[in-house]
């Protein structure tokens, strides 16, 4: 198990009811973290519309996560 801090933004924060939480997860990749939090908070947002960052770096879904990482979950963006 890894201790991962997850930060939620915009609609993800509203779904989760918190901006940040630290979870014990059996996660190997960024995708695993996304899926675990989606199940935890009942979100139906498809992964393909979202973005993810680990420790303030944008990354891809197959990037490995390590114990102590902070994972940022970004729902579909809409700047401009």
């Amino acid at each position, binding site marked *: 198990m890894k201790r991962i801090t997850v930060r939620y*933004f*915009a*609609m993800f924060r509203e779904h989760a009811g918190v901006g940040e939480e630290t979870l014990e997860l059996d996660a190997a990749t960024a995708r695993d973290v996304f899926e675990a939090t989606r199940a935890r908070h009942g979100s139906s947002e498809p992964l393909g*519309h979202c*973005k993810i*960052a680990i420790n*303030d770096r*944008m990354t891809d879904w197959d990037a490995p996560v390590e114990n102590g990482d902070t994972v*940022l979950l*970004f*729902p*579909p*963006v*809409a*700047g*401009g």
Partner: protein
Amino acid sequence: MMAISDKPIDTARLQRGVTNPAAGGYCAFEGWVRNENDGHVVERLEYEAYEPLAIAEGEHVIAEAQEKFGILDAQCVHRVGLLEIGECAVWIGVAAAHRDEAFRACRYIIDEIKVRLPIWKKEHYAGGDSGWVNCERCASHGIAD
């Protein structure tokens, strides 16, 4: 230069910041808050950004535009917070030797910023409802262009 601001965007001041003696063309884009989307009366918009990565990704986009189009300078400011109808939500200014690269770079920057930067927008409707706008819907309904 990419910036995120919680204060009104002063476009005249920003324009002075991209002047360059080698520039023969200046192109700017302003995205404004409009009063309607998808049949809903919109009263105001609320923008949220994750500033460290919005700035980092914005700087990447600007560097790409400089590389692709050979422009002299490009800057972008995006608002966050609660914005009223008619307010400027995003400003992009590009200076180039000639108009063609200024137009093309400006278009490139706004298109990339809309889909790549961690910025979100919530519409507040007449009657008190609100909803997050997502980019797919944004693209299919031409919002904020």
